[in-house]
Protein backbone atom coordinates (compact mmCIF):
# COMPACT_ATOMS: atom_id res chain seq x y z
CA UNK A 1 0.00 0.00 0.00
CA UNK A 2 1.37 3.39 -0.92
CA UNK A 3 -0.40 6.73 -1.19
CA UNK A 4 1.63 9.44 -2.81
CA UNK A 5 0.76 13.10 -3.24
CA UNK A 6 3.11 14.82 -5.68
CA UNK A 7 3.24 18.58 -5.47
CA UNK A 8 -0.52 19.07 -5.30
CA UNK A 9 -2.30 22.41 -5.26
CA UNK A 10 -6.01 22.85 -4.88
CA UNK A 11 -8.66 25.11 -3.44
CA UNK A 12 -12.13 26.46 -3.88
CA UNK A 13 -12.78 28.89 -6.70
CA UNK A 14 -10.06 31.53 -6.69
CA UNK A 15 -8.90 30.59 -3.22
CA UNK A 16 -5.88 28.27 -3.14
CA UNK A 17 -5.79 26.22 0.04
CA UNK A 18 -2.99 23.72 -0.62
CA UNK A 19 0.10 24.99 -2.34
CA UNK A 20 2.53 22.41 -3.70
CA UNK A 21 2.09 19.74 -1.03
CA UNK A 22 3.99 16.45 -1.37
CA UNK A 23 3.42 13.64 1.06
CA UNK A 24 3.79 9.87 1.20
CA UNK A 25 1.90 7.29 3.24
CA UNK A 26 3.44 3.79 3.15
CA UNK A 27 2.78 0.83 5.38
CA UNK A 28 2.29 1.92 8.98
CA UNK A 29 0.65 5.07 10.15
CA UNK A 30 1.17 8.67 9.26
CA UNK A 31 -0.16 11.85 10.81
CA UNK A 32 -0.85 15.28 9.35
CA UNK A 33 -0.86 18.03 11.92
CA UNK A 34 -1.69 21.69 11.81
CA UNK A 35 -3.94 24.40 13.13
CA UNK A 36 -7.48 25.15 11.96
CA UNK A 37 -7.54 26.41 8.41
CA UNK A 38 -4.20 24.87 7.47
CA UNK A 39 -5.83 22.71 4.80
CA UNK A 40 -5.94 19.28 6.47
CA UNK A 41 -9.52 18.50 5.55
CA UNK A 42 -9.04 19.92 2.05
CA UNK A 43 -6.10 17.54 1.59
CA UNK A 44 -8.30 14.57 2.52
CA UNK A 45 -11.04 15.78 0.20
CA UNK A 46 -8.47 16.05 -2.58
CA UNK A 47 -7.31 12.45 -2.01
CA UNK A 48 -10.96 11.32 -2.19
CA UNK A 49 -11.63 13.26 -5.37
CA UNK A 50 -14.11 15.63 -3.75
CA UNK A 51 -11.99 18.69 -4.55
CA UNK A 52 -10.41 18.94 -8.01
CA UNK A 53 -6.65 19.54 -8.20
CA UNK A 54 -5.26 22.67 -9.78
CA UNK A 55 -1.85 21.11 -10.04
CA UNK A 56 0.03 17.93 -9.15
CA UNK A 57 -0.87 14.24 -9.06
CA UNK A 58 -2.05 11.67 -6.56
CA UNK A 59 -1.08 8.00 -6.82
CA UNK A 60 -2.47 5.05 -4.91
CA UNK A 61 -0.67 1.72 -5.29
CA UNK A 62 1.08 3.09 -8.35
CA UNK A 63 -2.16 4.11 -10.03
CA UNK A 64 -3.11 7.71 -10.64
CA UNK A 65 -6.34 8.48 -8.76
CA UNK A 66 -6.74 12.26 -8.85
CA UNK A 67 -8.81 12.07 -12.03
CA UNK A 68 -11.19 9.48 -10.60
CA UNK A 69 -14.59 9.78 -8.94
CA UNK A 70 -14.97 9.42 -5.17
CA UNK A 71 -16.83 6.12 -5.24
CA UNK A 72 -14.17 4.57 -7.50
CA UNK A 73 -11.39 5.69 -5.18
CA UNK A 74 -13.23 4.24 -2.19
CA UNK A 75 -13.71 0.95 -4.02
CA UNK A 76 -9.97 0.86 -4.71
CA UNK A 77 -9.29 0.64 -0.99
CA UNK A 78 -9.32 4.04 0.68
CA UNK A 79 -11.90 4.53 3.43
CA UNK A 80 -12.49 7.73 5.27
CA UNK A 81 -13.91 8.75 8.63
CA UNK A 82 -15.11 12.26 7.83
CA UNK A 83 -14.85 15.05 10.33
CA UNK A 84 -18.51 15.77 10.91
CA UNK A 85 -22.02 14.65 10.00
CA UNK A 86 -20.48 11.34 9.26
CA UNK A 87 -23.36 8.93 9.87
CA UNK A 88 -26.75 8.09 8.47
CA UNK A 89 -28.86 9.07 11.51
CA UNK A 90 -32.08 7.52 10.19
CA UNK A 91 -30.47 4.09 9.93
CA UNK A 92 -29.65 1.73 12.77
CA UNK A 93 -26.10 1.04 13.91
CA UNK A 94 -26.10 -2.29 12.10
CA UNK A 95 -27.46 -0.73 8.90
CA UNK A 96 -24.79 1.96 9.00
CA UNK A 97 -22.17 -0.78 9.19
CA UNK A 98 -23.82 -2.73 6.37
CA UNK A 99 -23.84 0.30 4.10
CA UNK A 100 -20.09 0.48 4.59
CA UNK A 101 -19.68 -2.92 2.94
CA UNK A 102 -22.70 -3.03 0.65
CA UNK A 103 -21.29 -1.19 -2.35
CA UNK A 104 -17.88 -2.79 -2.56
CA UNK A 105 -17.77 -6.32 -3.92
CA UNK A 106 -14.89 -7.78 -1.89
CA UNK A 107 -16.25 -6.13 1.27
CA UNK A 108 -19.75 -7.48 0.74
CA UNK A 109 -18.40 -11.00 0.38
CA UNK A 110 -16.56 -10.70 3.70
CA UNK A 111 -19.29 -8.77 5.51
CA UNK A 112 -19.95 -11.25 8.34
CA UNK A 113 -16.26 -11.60 9.25
CA UNK A 114 -15.56 -7.88 9.10
CA UNK A 115 -18.60 -7.24 11.27
CA UNK A 116 -17.18 -9.56 13.94
CA UNK A 117 -13.85 -7.74 13.71
CA UNK A 118 -15.50 -4.33 14.09
CA UNK A 119 -17.52 -5.59 17.06
CA UNK A 120 -14.32 -6.89 18.64
CA UNK A 121 -12.79 -3.40 18.39
CA UNK A 122 -15.96 -1.66 19.56
CA UNK A 123 -18.14 -4.00 21.68
CA UNK A 124 -20.53 -1.10 22.39
CA UNK A 125 -21.64 -1.17 18.73
CA UNK A 126 -22.78 -4.77 19.09
CA UNK A 127 -24.82 -3.88 22.18
CA UNK A 128 -26.44 -0.99 20.31
CA UNK A 129 -26.80 -2.54 16.88
CA UNK A 130 -30.58 -2.07 16.70
CA UNK A 131 -30.50 1.55 17.83
CA UNK A 132 -30.75 4.52 15.45
CA UNK A 133 -27.33 6.02 14.86
CA UNK A 134 -28.63 9.53 15.50
CA UNK A 135 -29.51 8.66 19.09
CA UNK A 136 -25.98 7.73 20.22
CA UNK A 137 -23.45 9.85 22.07
CA UNK A 138 -20.71 11.70 20.22
CA UNK A 139 -18.03 9.18 21.14
CA UNK A 140 -20.16 6.22 20.10
CA UNK A 141 -21.00 7.93 16.81
CA UNK A 142 -17.31 8.44 16.09
CA UNK A 143 -16.68 4.76 16.84
CA UNK A 144 -19.50 3.81 14.51
CA UNK A 145 -18.01 6.01 11.80
CA UNK A 146 -14.66 4.24 12.22
CA UNK A 147 -16.46 0.90 12.17
CA UNK A 148 -18.32 1.79 9.01
CA UNK A 149 -15.10 2.79 7.28
CA UNK A 150 -13.53 -0.53 8.29
CA UNK A 151 -16.48 -2.44 6.83
CA UNK A 152 -15.24 -1.46 3.36
CA UNK A 153 -12.11 -3.58 4.02
CA UNK A 154 -9.81 -0.70 3.09
CA UNK A 155 -6.08 -0.91 2.57
CA UNK A 156 -5.81 2.62 3.92
CA UNK A 157 -7.99 4.15 6.62
CA UNK A 158 -8.11 7.94 6.67
CA UNK A 159 -9.37 9.72 9.78
CA UNK A 160 -10.10 13.44 9.74
CA UNK A 161 -9.51 14.76 13.27
CA UNK A 162 -10.83 11.72 15.13
CA UNK A 163 -10.46 13.46 18.50
CA UNK A 164 -12.60 16.47 17.53
CA UNK A 165 -15.32 17.20 20.06
CA UNK A 166 -14.66 14.16 22.25
CA UNK A 167 -13.79 14.10 25.93
CA UNK A 168 -10.15 13.20 26.71
CA UNK A 169 -10.88 9.74 28.15
CA UNK A 170 -12.78 8.75 25.01
CA UNK A 171 -10.00 10.14 22.81
CA UNK A 172 -7.52 8.03 24.73
CA UNK A 173 -9.67 4.94 24.29
CA UNK A 174 -10.06 5.60 20.56
CA UNK A 175 -6.32 5.94 20.03
CA UNK A 176 -5.73 2.72 21.99
CA UNK A 177 -7.93 0.97 19.47
CA UNK A 178 -6.21 2.68 16.52
CA UNK A 179 -2.93 1.36 17.93
CA UNK A 180 -4.28 -2.17 17.68
CA UNK A 181 -5.78 -1.54 14.23
CA UNK A 182 -2.60 -0.18 12.71
CA UNK A 183 -1.09 -3.65 12.90
CA UNK A 184 -3.68 -4.75 10.33
CA UNK A 185 -4.08 -1.75 8.02
CA UNK A 186 -2.40 1.54 7.21
CA UNK A 187 -3.73 4.63 8.90
CA UNK A 188 -3.49 8.25 7.81
CA UNK A 189 -4.92 10.76 10.23
CA UNK A 190 -5.13 14.51 10.62
CA UNK A 191 -5.06 15.88 14.14
CA UNK A 192 -4.54 18.89 16.32
CA UNK A 193 -4.04 16.67 19.35
CA UNK A 194 -0.36 15.77 18.93
CA UNK A 195 0.05 14.29 22.38
CA UNK A 196 -2.35 11.45 21.62
CA UNK A 197 -1.53 10.97 17.96
CA UNK A 198 2.23 10.80 18.38
CA UNK A 199 1.60 7.54 20.33
CA UNK A 200 0.02 6.12 17.20
CA UNK A 201 1.78 7.45 14.11
CA UNK A 202 5.23 6.45 12.96
CA UNK A 203 5.74 9.52 10.83
CA UNK A 204 4.24 12.99 10.75
CA UNK A 205 3.90 16.08 8.62
CA UNK A 206 3.15 19.57 9.86
CA UNK A 207 0.93 21.62 7.58
CA UNK A 208 0.65 25.38 7.93
CA UNK A 209 -1.08 27.75 5.51
CA UNK A 210 -1.15 25.14 2.78
CA UNK A 211 2.54 24.25 2.97
CA UNK A 212 4.31 21.33 4.59
CA UNK A 213 6.65 23.10 6.99
CA UNK A 214 8.12 20.10 8.75
CA UNK A 215 8.22 16.33 8.44
CA UNK A 216 9.84 13.58 10.42
CA UNK A 217 9.32 10.45 12.49
CA UNK A 218 7.22 10.63 15.63
CA UNK A 219 10.16 10.86 18.03
CA UNK A 220 11.79 13.55 15.95
CA UNK A 221 8.63 15.66 15.98
CA UNK A 222 8.03 15.09 19.68
CA UNK A 223 11.53 16.43 20.45
CA UNK A 224 11.55 19.28 17.96
CA UNK A 225 11.50 22.55 19.96
CA UNK A 226 9.37 24.27 17.31
CA UNK A 227 6.73 21.57 17.61
CA UNK A 228 6.77 21.29 21.38
CA UNK A 229 6.32 25.00 21.74
CA UNK A 230 3.53 25.37 19.20
CA UNK A 231 1.56 22.16 19.70
CA UNK A 232 2.40 20.56 23.01
CA UNK A 233 2.45 23.74 25.07
CA UNK A 234 5.82 22.94 26.63
Amino acid at each position, binding site marked *: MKLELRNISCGYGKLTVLNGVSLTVDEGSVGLFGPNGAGKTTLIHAV*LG*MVPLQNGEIYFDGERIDTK*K*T*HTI*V*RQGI*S*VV*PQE*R*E*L*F*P*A*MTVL*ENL*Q*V*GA*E*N*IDRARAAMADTLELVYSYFPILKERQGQYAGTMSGGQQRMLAVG*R*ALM*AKPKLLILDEPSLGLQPSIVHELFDILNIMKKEISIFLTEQNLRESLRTVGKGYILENGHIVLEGDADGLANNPQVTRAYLGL
Partner: protein
Amino acid sequence: MKKTLNRTFLIIGVLLLAAPLFMGPYAQSVARSVLMYLMLAISWNMLVSSGQLSFGIAGFFGLGGYASTLAIVYLGMPPILSLVFAFILVGAAAWLLGLVALRLRGMYFAISTLALAEIFRVIIHNWHGFTGGPNGKLLPKLIFDGASVPTYLLMAVLAAGTIAFSMWFRRSKFHFAVTSIRDNEIAAMSTGINIYKTLLMVFAVTSAVQGLVGASFANMYGFVTPESSFNMNYTLLPLAMTLLGGLYTTWGPVLGAVLLGIVGEYLKLYIPYGHLIVYGIIIVLVILFMPNGIVGLSGKLLNGFEARKKGEVQL
Protein backbone atom coordinates in the same frame (compact mmCIF):
# COMPACT_ATOMS: atom_id res chain seq x y z
CA MET B 1 -43.33 -6.31 14.18
CA LYS B 2 -42.52 -5.21 10.64
CA LYS B 3 -43.42 -8.69 9.40
CA THR B 4 -46.82 -8.62 11.09
CA LEU B 5 -47.50 -5.22 9.59
CA ASN B 6 -46.44 -6.30 6.11
CA ARG B 7 -48.50 -9.48 6.24
CA THR B 8 -51.59 -7.63 7.48
CA PHE B 9 -51.34 -5.18 4.61
CA LEU B 10 -50.70 -7.99 2.12
CA ILE B 11 -53.90 -9.84 3.08
CA ILE B 12 -55.99 -6.67 3.10
CA GLY B 13 -54.43 -5.74 -0.24
CA VAL B 14 -55.30 -9.00 -1.94
CA LEU B 15 -58.89 -8.84 -0.64
CA LEU B 16 -59.30 -5.24 -1.80
CA LEU B 17 -57.81 -6.09 -5.17
CA ALA B 18 -60.26 -8.94 -5.70
CA ALA B 19 -63.35 -7.17 -4.32
CA PRO B 20 -64.26 -4.97 -7.32
CA LEU B 21 -64.53 -8.10 -9.49
CA PHE B 22 -67.80 -8.86 -7.71
CA MET B 23 -69.10 -5.31 -7.56
CA GLY B 24 -69.90 -4.40 -11.15
CA PRO B 25 -68.50 -1.95 -13.71
CA TYR B 26 -68.86 1.23 -11.65
CA ALA B 27 -66.82 -0.11 -8.74
CA GLN B 28 -64.33 -1.47 -11.23
CA SER B 29 -63.89 1.88 -12.89
CA VAL B 30 -63.35 3.61 -9.52
CA ALA B 31 -60.92 0.86 -8.54
CA ARG B 32 -59.03 1.25 -11.82
CA SER B 33 -58.43 4.91 -11.19
CA VAL B 34 -57.41 4.14 -7.59
CA LEU B 35 -54.87 1.61 -8.89
CA MET B 36 -53.58 4.11 -11.39
CA TYR B 37 -52.91 6.69 -8.70
CA LEU B 38 -51.49 3.98 -6.49
CA MET B 39 -48.82 3.15 -9.07
CA LEU B 40 -47.98 6.82 -9.57
CA ALA B 41 -47.71 7.31 -5.81
CA ILE B 42 -45.47 4.25 -5.30
CA SER B 43 -43.12 5.26 -8.08
CA TRP B 44 -42.91 8.85 -6.84
CA ASN B 45 -42.25 7.59 -3.32
CA MET B 46 -39.35 5.44 -4.54
CA LEU B 47 -37.58 8.45 -6.01
CA VAL B 48 -38.34 10.63 -3.02
CA SER B 49 -36.67 8.00 -0.82
CA SER B 50 -33.42 9.23 -2.31
CA GLY B 51 -34.25 12.79 -1.31
CA GLN B 52 -35.01 13.90 -4.87
CA LEU B 53 -38.40 15.52 -5.27
CA SER B 54 -39.98 15.10 -8.71
CA PHE B 55 -42.86 17.30 -9.86
CA GLY B 56 -42.73 15.72 -13.27
CA ILE B 57 -45.16 12.83 -12.77
CA ALA B 58 -47.77 14.39 -15.06
CA GLY B 59 -45.11 14.89 -17.72
CA PHE B 60 -44.06 11.26 -17.85
CA PHE B 61 -47.67 10.15 -17.47
CA GLY B 62 -48.69 12.22 -20.50
CA LEU B 63 -45.62 11.21 -22.49
CA GLY B 64 -46.49 7.54 -21.88
CA GLY B 65 -50.08 8.12 -23.00
CA TYR B 66 -48.95 9.78 -26.22
CA ALA B 67 -46.23 7.18 -26.87
CA SER B 68 -48.75 4.38 -26.66
CA THR B 69 -51.50 6.17 -28.62
CA LEU B 70 -49.23 7.30 -31.45
CA ALA B 71 -47.66 3.83 -31.68
CA ILE B 72 -51.13 2.33 -32.11
CA VAL B 73 -52.34 5.00 -34.55
CA TYR B 74 -49.26 5.19 -36.77
CA LEU B 75 -47.65 1.77 -36.39
CA GLY B 76 -50.72 -0.34 -35.74
CA MET B 77 -49.10 -1.73 -32.62
CA PRO B 78 -51.26 -4.09 -30.50
CA PRO B 79 -52.41 -2.26 -27.31
CA ILE B 80 -50.53 -4.47 -24.83
CA LEU B 81 -47.33 -4.10 -26.83
CA SER B 82 -47.86 -0.34 -26.92
CA LEU B 83 -47.84 -0.32 -23.10
CA VAL B 84 -44.43 -2.00 -23.11
CA PHE B 85 -43.31 0.45 -25.79
CA ALA B 86 -44.42 3.42 -23.65
CA PHE B 87 -42.63 1.97 -20.60
CA ILE B 88 -39.35 1.65 -22.51
CA LEU B 89 -39.62 4.94 -24.36
CA VAL B 90 -40.43 6.99 -21.26
CA GLY B 91 -37.69 5.19 -19.30
CA ALA B 92 -35.17 6.05 -22.02
CA ALA B 93 -36.36 9.67 -22.18
CA ALA B 94 -36.09 10.00 -18.39
CA TRP B 95 -32.60 8.49 -18.51
CA LEU B 96 -31.44 11.05 -21.06
CA LEU B 97 -33.07 13.98 -19.26
CA GLY B 98 -31.80 12.67 -15.93
CA LEU B 99 -28.24 12.83 -17.26
CA VAL B 100 -28.65 16.59 -17.13
CA ALA B 101 -31.33 17.18 -14.49
CA LEU B 102 -29.68 14.97 -11.85
CA ARG B 103 -26.68 17.25 -11.72
CA LEU B 104 -29.09 19.43 -9.77
CA ARG B 105 -30.35 18.76 -6.29
CA GLY B 106 -33.24 19.59 -4.04
CA MET B 107 -35.36 22.53 -5.09
CA TYR B 108 -33.47 22.97 -8.37
CA PHE B 109 -34.08 19.40 -9.42
CA ALA B 110 -37.75 19.65 -8.40
CA ILE B 111 -38.30 22.77 -10.48
CA SER B 112 -36.51 21.35 -13.50
CA THR B 113 -38.78 18.27 -13.45
CA LEU B 114 -41.78 20.57 -13.32
CA ALA B 115 -40.38 22.46 -16.29
CA LEU B 116 -39.72 19.22 -18.20
CA ALA B 117 -43.34 18.17 -17.80
CA GLU B 118 -44.46 21.54 -19.12
CA ILE B 119 -42.04 21.34 -22.06
CA PHE B 120 -43.47 17.94 -23.06
CA ARG B 121 -46.95 19.43 -23.00
CA VAL B 122 -46.01 22.49 -25.04
CA ILE B 123 -44.21 20.45 -27.70
CA ILE B 124 -47.10 18.03 -28.06
CA HIS B 125 -49.61 20.88 -28.06
CA ASN B 126 -47.87 22.56 -30.99
CA TRP B 127 -46.86 19.59 -33.12
CA HIS B 128 -50.18 19.47 -34.98
CA GLY B 129 -49.19 17.15 -37.80
CA PHE B 130 -47.92 14.37 -35.56
CA THR B 131 -49.74 14.63 -32.26
CA GLY B 132 -53.02 16.20 -33.29
CA GLY B 133 -52.17 19.43 -31.48
CA PRO B 134 -54.69 20.74 -28.94
CA ASN B 135 -57.33 18.29 -30.18
CA GLY B 136 -55.25 15.29 -29.27
CA LYS B 137 -55.68 11.88 -30.83
CA LEU B 138 -58.39 9.27 -30.67
CA LEU B 139 -57.61 5.58 -30.45
CA PRO B 140 -59.38 3.35 -33.00
CA LYS B 141 -60.67 1.20 -30.13
CA LEU B 142 -60.31 0.71 -26.39
CA ILE B 143 -58.10 -1.94 -24.87
CA PHE B 144 -60.03 -5.28 -24.61
CA ASP B 145 -62.77 -3.44 -26.52
CA GLY B 146 -63.58 -1.59 -23.33
CA ALA B 147 -64.64 -4.72 -21.43
CA SER B 148 -64.62 -3.82 -17.75
CA VAL B 149 -63.37 -7.00 -16.09
CA PRO B 150 -60.29 -7.70 -18.27
CA THR B 151 -59.31 -4.03 -18.13
CA TYR B 152 -59.57 -4.09 -14.37
CA LEU B 153 -57.56 -7.30 -14.23
CA LEU B 154 -54.83 -5.72 -16.34
CA MET B 155 -54.61 -2.78 -13.94
CA ALA B 156 -54.63 -5.13 -10.95
CA VAL B 157 -51.72 -7.09 -12.42
CA LEU B 158 -49.75 -3.93 -13.18
CA ALA B 159 -50.43 -2.55 -9.68
CA ALA B 160 -49.46 -5.83 -8.01
CA GLY B 161 -46.29 -5.82 -10.08
CA THR B 162 -45.49 -2.26 -9.00
CA ILE B 163 -46.09 -3.14 -5.35
CA ALA B 164 -43.88 -6.23 -5.63
CA PHE B 165 -41.19 -4.16 -7.32
CA SER B 166 -41.33 -1.58 -4.54
CA MET B 167 -41.10 -4.33 -1.88
CA TRP B 168 -38.08 -5.80 -3.61
CA PHE B 169 -36.56 -2.33 -3.90
CA ARG B 170 -36.87 -1.76 -0.15
CA ARG B 171 -34.95 -4.95 0.56
CA SER B 172 -32.30 -4.58 -2.11
CA LYS B 173 -29.02 -2.75 -1.82
CA PHE B 174 -30.76 0.14 -3.57
CA HIS B 175 -32.68 0.79 -0.38
CA PHE B 176 -29.45 1.43 1.54
CA ALA B 177 -28.01 3.41 -1.32
CA VAL B 178 -30.99 5.76 -1.71
CA THR B 179 -31.50 6.17 2.03
CA SER B 180 -27.86 7.09 2.53
CA ILE B 181 -28.00 9.55 -0.36
CA ARG B 182 -31.02 11.16 1.28
CA ASP B 183 -29.31 11.24 4.68
CA ASN B 184 -25.89 12.53 3.73
CA GLU B 185 -24.41 12.64 0.25
CA ILE B 186 -20.81 13.17 1.34
CA ALA B 187 -20.94 10.15 3.63
CA ALA B 188 -22.70 8.14 0.91
CA MET B 189 -19.90 8.92 -1.53
CA SER B 190 -17.34 7.91 1.06
CA THR B 191 -18.88 4.48 1.39
CA GLY B 192 -18.40 3.82 -2.31
CA ILE B 193 -21.91 4.59 -3.53
CA ASN B 194 -22.08 5.89 -7.10
CA ILE B 195 -24.64 8.60 -6.37
CA TYR B 196 -25.17 9.80 -9.94
CA LYS B 197 -25.70 6.32 -11.36
CA THR B 198 -28.01 5.24 -8.53
CA LEU B 199 -30.19 8.33 -8.89
CA LEU B 200 -30.24 7.99 -12.66
CA MET B 201 -31.42 4.40 -12.47
CA VAL B 202 -34.14 5.15 -9.92
CA PHE B 203 -35.30 8.21 -11.87
CA ALA B 204 -35.47 6.29 -15.17
CA VAL B 205 -37.33 3.29 -13.73
CA THR B 206 -39.84 5.29 -11.68
CA SER B 207 -40.54 7.58 -14.65
CA ALA B 208 -41.02 4.53 -16.86
CA VAL B 209 -43.65 3.26 -14.42
CA GLN B 210 -45.38 6.64 -14.65
CA GLY B 211 -45.27 6.38 -18.45
CA LEU B 212 -46.77 2.91 -18.28
CA VAL B 213 -49.63 4.19 -16.14
CA GLY B 214 -50.22 7.03 -18.60
CA ALA B 215 -50.27 4.55 -21.44
CA SER B 216 -52.84 2.33 -19.74
CA PHE B 217 -54.95 5.39 -18.95
CA ALA B 218 -54.97 6.38 -22.63
CA ASN B 219 -55.94 2.85 -23.62
CA MET B 220 -58.77 2.71 -21.09
CA TYR B 221 -60.35 5.98 -22.11
CA GLY B 222 -59.41 5.91 -25.78
CA PHE B 223 -57.95 9.37 -26.25
CA VAL B 224 -55.13 11.74 -25.40
CA THR B 225 -55.16 15.54 -25.32
CA PRO B 226 -52.46 17.86 -24.00
CA GLU B 227 -54.77 19.30 -21.33
CA SER B 228 -56.05 16.01 -19.94
CA SER B 229 -52.95 13.86 -20.36
CA PHE B 230 -50.58 16.35 -18.75
CA ASN B 231 -53.04 17.44 -16.08
CA MET B 232 -51.42 18.73 -12.89
CA ASN B 233 -53.65 16.36 -10.89
CA TYR B 234 -51.41 13.48 -11.90
CA THR B 235 -48.57 15.18 -10.07
CA LEU B 236 -50.44 16.53 -7.06
CA LEU B 237 -52.74 13.64 -6.12
CA PRO B 238 -50.02 10.95 -5.87
CA LEU B 239 -48.07 13.37 -3.71
CA ALA B 240 -51.02 13.90 -1.34
CA MET B 241 -51.69 10.16 -1.22
CA THR B 242 -48.10 9.34 -0.33
CA LEU B 243 -47.98 11.99 2.39
CA LEU B 244 -51.22 10.72 3.90
CA GLY B 245 -50.19 7.06 3.78
CA GLY B 246 -46.58 7.51 4.83
CA LEU B 247 -43.36 8.42 3.04
CA TYR B 248 -40.54 5.94 2.36
CA THR B 249 -42.71 2.83 2.68
CA THR B 250 -44.42 0.55 0.18
CA TRP B 251 -47.75 0.43 1.96
CA GLY B 252 -48.02 4.15 2.66
CA PRO B 253 -48.80 5.17 -0.93
CA VAL B 254 -51.06 2.13 -1.32
CA LEU B 255 -53.12 3.06 1.69
CA GLY B 256 -53.16 6.75 0.76
CA ALA B 257 -54.28 6.01 -2.79
CA VAL B 258 -57.09 3.72 -1.66
CA LEU B 259 -58.39 6.17 0.96
CA LEU B 260 -58.10 9.38 -1.03
CA GLY B 261 -59.13 7.69 -4.28
CA ILE B 262 -62.41 6.45 -2.84
CA VAL B 263 -63.11 9.56 -0.78
CA GLY B 264 -62.34 11.71 -3.82
CA GLU B 265 -64.77 9.74 -5.95
CA TYR B 266 -67.63 10.41 -3.54
CA LEU B 267 -66.74 14.06 -3.06
CA LYS B 268 -66.66 14.52 -6.83
CA LEU B 269 -70.34 13.54 -6.95
CA TYR B 270 -71.44 16.06 -4.33
CA ILE B 271 -69.04 18.97 -4.74
CA PRO B 272 -67.39 19.00 -8.19
CA TYR B 273 -63.71 19.94 -7.82
CA GLY B 274 -64.35 20.23 -4.07
CA HIS B 275 -62.30 17.08 -3.59
CA LEU B 276 -59.20 19.13 -4.38
CA ILE B 277 -59.91 21.37 -1.38
CA VAL B 278 -60.28 18.31 0.79
CA TYR B 279 -56.95 16.97 -0.50
CA GLY B 280 -55.30 20.26 0.38
CA ILE B 281 -56.70 20.19 3.89
CA ILE B 282 -55.57 16.61 4.34
CA ILE B 283 -52.00 17.46 3.30
CA VAL B 284 -51.85 20.31 5.79
CA LEU B 285 -53.25 18.19 8.63
CA VAL B 286 -50.98 15.24 7.89
CA ILE B 287 -47.85 17.38 7.80
CA LEU B 288 -48.82 19.06 11.05
CA PHE B 289 -49.99 16.09 13.06
CA MET B 290 -48.61 12.87 11.62
CA PRO B 291 -45.54 13.52 9.50
CA ASN B 292 -44.93 9.80 9.11
CA GLY B 293 -48.38 9.21 7.68
CA ILE B 294 -50.78 6.43 8.57
CA VAL B 295 -48.25 3.63 8.16
CA GLY B 296 -45.77 5.44 10.40
CA LEU B 297 -48.45 5.99 13.00
CA SER B 298 -49.76 2.43 12.95
CA GLY B 299 -46.20 1.09 13.11
CA LYS B 300 -45.67 3.16 16.22
CA LEU B 301 -48.92 1.93 17.79
CA LEU B 302 -48.12 -1.67 16.88
CA ASN B 303 -44.65 -1.27 18.38
CA GLY B 304 -46.17 -0.04 21.61
CA PHE B 305 -48.64 -2.90 21.62
CA GLU B 306 -45.99 -5.58 21.14
CA ALA B 307 -43.76 -4.02 23.75
CA ARG B 308 -46.61 -4.05 26.25
CA LYS B 309 -47.28 -7.68 25.41
CA LYS B 310 -43.68 -8.52 26.22
CA GLY B 311 -43.92 -6.42 29.36
CA GLU B 312 -41.41 -3.87 28.16
CA VAL B 313 -41.81 -0.21 28.89
CA GLN B 314 -42.29 1.95 25.86
CA LEU B 315 -41.10 5.50 26.17
